[in-house]
């Protein structure tokens, strides 16, 4: 579904990602873990075509997308929910969702998708006329995911969706992500909460200083000695 080959990413002269390769199968939930400043968000932005300049190949459904602007990638089904949610604070929940369906393909299906999103996330329906900026952190995260779903993603990139959330929301979120699988959406998720993500993910990658240092099935990594020492503090 999503193939990344030898990706290098730069902020100006600063070289952050070094030869990153990923291979993500359709319908999988894939975790991306790593310490602070490892380059996880950089990888997510690079996949979305924002902020960085890149060298290397990115293929979505066998189509090369590395030279496309962000909105073309969105139109083809690659959608990022960025760090810190980034809602449109002075727009209502409803308007935020409508903006999610901006691309023509998604816009044609907006009504139908909206109904599905409200079914999946009933609190959004209750809050539809409220300004997004006035929601609680957990609610905002739900809007951010709902907004991305409005774009009819085939691959959903989630950058630390549980950041700053109460445990009950974390649980809710992982349930939500699991239910996305049923909708046939492929998920790449960056997560600090390593235990949680490795239990949910089919596969996972470990990023260290801009390089992939480990990869494998979620379960296998959960038992990996190196990972235990480095991240789980065991």
């Amino acid at each position, binding site marked *: 579904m999503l193939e990344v080959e030898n990706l290098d990413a730069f902020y100006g002269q600063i070289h952050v990602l070094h030869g990153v390769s990923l291979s993500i199968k359709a319908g999988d939930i894939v975790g991306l873990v790593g310490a602070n400043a490892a380059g996880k968000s950089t990888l997510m932005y690079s996949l979305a075509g924002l902020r960085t300049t890149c060298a290397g190949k990115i293929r979505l459904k066998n189509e090369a997308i590395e030279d496309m602007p962000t*909105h073309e990638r969105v139109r083809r089904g690659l959608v990022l929910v960025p760090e810190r949610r980034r809602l*449109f604070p*002075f*727009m209502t929940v409803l308007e935020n969702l*409508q903006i999610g369906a901006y691309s023509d393909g998604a816009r044609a299906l907006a009504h139908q998708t909206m109904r599905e999103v409200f079914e999946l996330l009933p609190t959004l329906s209750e809050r539809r006329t409220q300004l997004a900026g006035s929601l609680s952190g957990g609610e905002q995260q739900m809007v951010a995911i709902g907004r991305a779903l409005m774009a009819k993603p085939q691959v959903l990139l989630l950058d630390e969706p549980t950041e700053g959330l109460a445990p009950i929301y974390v649980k809710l979120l992982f349930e939500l992500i699991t239910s996305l699988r049923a909708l046939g959406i492929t998920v790449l998720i960056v997560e600090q909460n390593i235990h949680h993500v490795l239990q949910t993910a089919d596969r996972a990658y470990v990023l260290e200083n801009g390089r992939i240092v480990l990869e494998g099935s979620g379960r296998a990594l959960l038992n990996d000695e190196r990972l235990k020492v480095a991240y789980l503090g065991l």
Partner: protein
Amino acid sequence: MTTLGQLVLSGIFIGAIYALMSIGLTLIFGVLRIVNFAHGEFLMLGMYGAWAMTRLLGLNPYLAMIAVVPAMFLFGGLVYRLIVSPALDKPHLVVVFATMGLSIFMQNAALMLMSADLFDIPPVFGHAVTIGPLYFKAELVVGFVITVICTLVLQWALKSTYLGKAIRATVQDREAAMLMGIPVPRIFLITFAGGSALVGLAACVMMPLFSVFPTVGLNFVLIAFVIVVLGGMGSISGALIGGICVGIVQSLSSYYVAPAFGQMFFFILFLLVMIFRPNGLLGQKGAADIGIAD
């Protein structure tokens, strides 16, 4: 009392027209976060256009809008493509100098082509509008009505159309807008061209009231800057209120004090607002109606 009413109302009318000429500036600032220093010269160009349509083709200046507004839209689009867009990812001063350069170029081009003479058009309406005991130039009242309609339509479009929502989203968070599939460079182009078209509209409304000459823009652009800052940068309803305040102050002070001091008084008003309400009259709330406030 009649005099006061007369002054206040004509202040409101002329102020609204000033607001119309400022909306393009505030819109472009809100979305692109740049100041178009050639804004006054866009107005000058539009006024020459309206003048030419009226004098040479014998059109009513309000009908001239049909040609001037789309022409200014295209002109704005061209300026965006050739001058603004290439400067956007450079340091901020580059856009400042680029639009200032354009402003000087347009003034001199106008001087060369049209000379320094003042051009005007004959009155459109034969008689004044009376409201009770008060008399107003009909052109002033028509300009006011056009401004109000235009502001309402624009507010509605920003609130309710998909394009309007995309513009507001771009104002609120440019990156997030891109991530939602909004082609932000295209939104910039449309906003810049649309803002220029609005200046063209203002030019047609102003041509029956003022003369046009190569540096006419300088007279008005200062007022426009004051209005935009008063109303809260990026706010359309704020521009309307800011414009009306400026109009009233100008009208009262030039009657009770002296016409020459009119400008001084609205700059005093400007300073007072900056001291006590640095975010503009409507403050953050005003800015938020198209969305700036982060």
